[in-house]
């Protein structure tokens, strides 16, 4: 059935993939791909109003909406029009058997007037509501806990002031609410009231979105190999998953800032089950038993890509570069020895991550991670993401961070089993990588590209001239 899906006007790229992931989560395998989208006439892709066809019954639509973060509401659309007269005509034509069950005398209801890109005063809202006398409402009005909520949604013929490319035509929608996001989660989990956070703790809204992309639910096991203060696992645990994490920095995972301010206290604070384990381990040399594979249902992480924080791996910087010859730690010093680490380039890190995920995810399991992109590279509109024979890309959602770079949330699904063949290919590619990765992407490259001073003498974007620009891209 087709619904009107109204989104919050934020994280635009993340909205459709979230709905599709949740369709997959509640509707079963294939339900995500079965979702179809259309835009109302004259609406740009980034408008909050989308038409969506969801598989299954209305219960599925409600589940999707209620679990989501970015769906303001999913509505059964009773009518739409450029004017209120057109709307009335459409609603009158909408079949009675779809309308009457929600208008019965024993039910309660309320009508909400909402708008995008304009403000409607309280008086105007009342006038609009009074205009709906042609709908035979027989139930009682209940403003606090109505059984049925009806929405009048108005968009105006705005200019471009609200950040969208101009739409020429005003549209009014009328629909019955099927479900809506519970954004109360956000103030509850906001980072500023969390006890233990680090400089790169994941914003809670994004962490919940990542958990949704990873199809997190009770009975599933979620792993974060760069766990830090656990901000991603907190979201996964909120949705009922069992969690595991690892990090190379022992101060973060073991000690935190004291007995009541550490990764464990973050779970205690929200009364969530704590992770099954937090390990100190190196993603470059994961300590899993030989032959162990396919245990995690999702791997969700934000790898260190060297802009805010750089990655580290085992084995001494000078040692790996061959500046100093291999040495042995003397036996008497082994106990309290602090092993030195070397920078871990983004390319190697992502390569290791894909290899780990290929091995440790169950078939059908999801790998969800952030990948940085220099926006200059994106000019042709062709984004290059890492690939692996075991994985299929489900979605890529860009979040612009600065004029120069953005991060892309990649969601991949494991489509093939981990075989000896894959392992061998992985090993080969890994060797190649170790030999070539320094040429490929030198440590700190991204950092330099993001933070180097601007070249003022370069003519800014001369070739892109006068096309209308919006969100830093060109509106079509």
């Amino acid at each position, binding site marked *: 059935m087709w619904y009107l899906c109204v989104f919050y006007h934020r994280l635009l790229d993340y909205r459709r993939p979230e709905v599709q992931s949740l369709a997959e989560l509640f509707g079963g395998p294939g339900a995500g791909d079965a979702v179809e989208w259309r835009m109302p006439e004259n609406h740009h892709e980034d408008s909050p109003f989308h038409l969506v066809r969801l598989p299954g019954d209305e219960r599925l639509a409600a589940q999707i909406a209620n679990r989501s973060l970015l769906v303001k509401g999913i509505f059964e659309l009773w009518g739409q029009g450029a004017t209120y007269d057109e709307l009335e005509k459409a609603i009158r034509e909408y079949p009675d058997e779809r309308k009457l069950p929600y208008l019965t005398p024993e039910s309660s209801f309320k009508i909400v007037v909402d708008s995008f890109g304009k403000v409607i005063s309280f008086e105007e809202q009342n006038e609009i509501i009074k205009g709906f006398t042609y709908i035979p409402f027989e139930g009682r009005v209940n403003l606090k806990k109505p059984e049925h909520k009806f929405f009048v949604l108005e968009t105006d013929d705005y200019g471009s002031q609200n950040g969208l490319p101009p739409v020429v035509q005003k549209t009014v929608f009328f629909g019955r609410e099927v479900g809506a996001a519970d954004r109360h989660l956000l103030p509850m989990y906001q980072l500023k009231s969390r006890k233990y956070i680090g400089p790169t703790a994941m914003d809670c809204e994004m962490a919940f979105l990542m958990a949704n992309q990873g199809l997190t639910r*009770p*009975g*599933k*096991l979620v792993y974060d190999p760069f766990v830090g203060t656990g901000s991603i696992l907190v979201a996964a645990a909120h949705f009922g998953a*069992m969690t*595991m994490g690892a990090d*190379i920095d*022992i101060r973060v*995972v*073991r*000690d935190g800032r004291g007995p009541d301010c550490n990764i*464990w206290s973050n779970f205690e604070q929200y009364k969530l*089950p*704590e992770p*099954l*384990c*937090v*390990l*100190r*381990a*190196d993603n470059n*040399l*994961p*300590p*899993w*038993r*030989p032959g*162990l594979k*396919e*245990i995690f249902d999702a791997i969700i992480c934000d790898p260190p890509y060297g802009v805010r924080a750089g990655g580290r791996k*085992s*084995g*001494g910087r000078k*040692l*790996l570069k061959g500046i100093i010859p*291999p*040495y*042995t*730690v003397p036996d008497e010093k*082994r106990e309290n*020895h602090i*092993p*030195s680490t070397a920078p871990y380039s983004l390319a190697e890190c992502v390569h290791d991550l894909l290899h780990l995920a290929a091995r440790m995810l*169950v078939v059908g399991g999801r790998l969800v991670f952030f990948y940085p992109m220099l926006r200059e590279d994106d000019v042709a509109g062709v984004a290059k993401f890492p690939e692996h024979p075991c994985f299929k890309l489900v979605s890529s959602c860009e979040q612009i961070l600065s004029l120069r770079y953005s991060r892309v949330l990649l969601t991949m699904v494991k489509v093939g089993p981990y075989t000896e063949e894959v392992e061998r290919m992985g090993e080969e590619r890994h060797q190649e990588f170790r030999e070539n990765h320094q040429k490929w992407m030198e440590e700190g490259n991204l950092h330099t590209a993001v933070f180097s001073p601007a070249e003022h003498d370069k003519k800014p974007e001369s070739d892109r001239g006068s096309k209308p620009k919006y969100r830093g891209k060109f509106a079509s």
Partner: protein
Amino acid sequence: MRLLTHNFLASNVKGVSTGYPLALEVAKTSIKEVELNVDFLRGILPKIDWRALFAATSAAGFPELLAAEQPPEAELFAEGAAAVEGSAIRRLHHALLEIHVEEGTLVCPDSGRSFPILKGVPNMLLHEDEVRH
């Protein structure tokens, strides 16, 4: 560290081929309740090395908790077994997910390298001269 984790961990010190199972030496344990999820246990059971788990429960001070051999799945996942106090599945759940090693050591069976567990976090990081290149 839950014993589930212990079951998955191995030593990857240079020159060691299997490094599994790690011998568990326990100084302090605690019990942390976790909600039992049958589907989770059903999914994870084929990945469990029962002998290593059995050895770990004994080392953690619960030698009677599990049978030395893995009980048949029909018994573990019998209808309603999860609600019965002391059933095989309840004991498996307890062993895998509720026994938490707070302090102790994991010892590599091949090289004798020991990995300390402090505040529940096993430190699996290698020294420079143990890293395989």
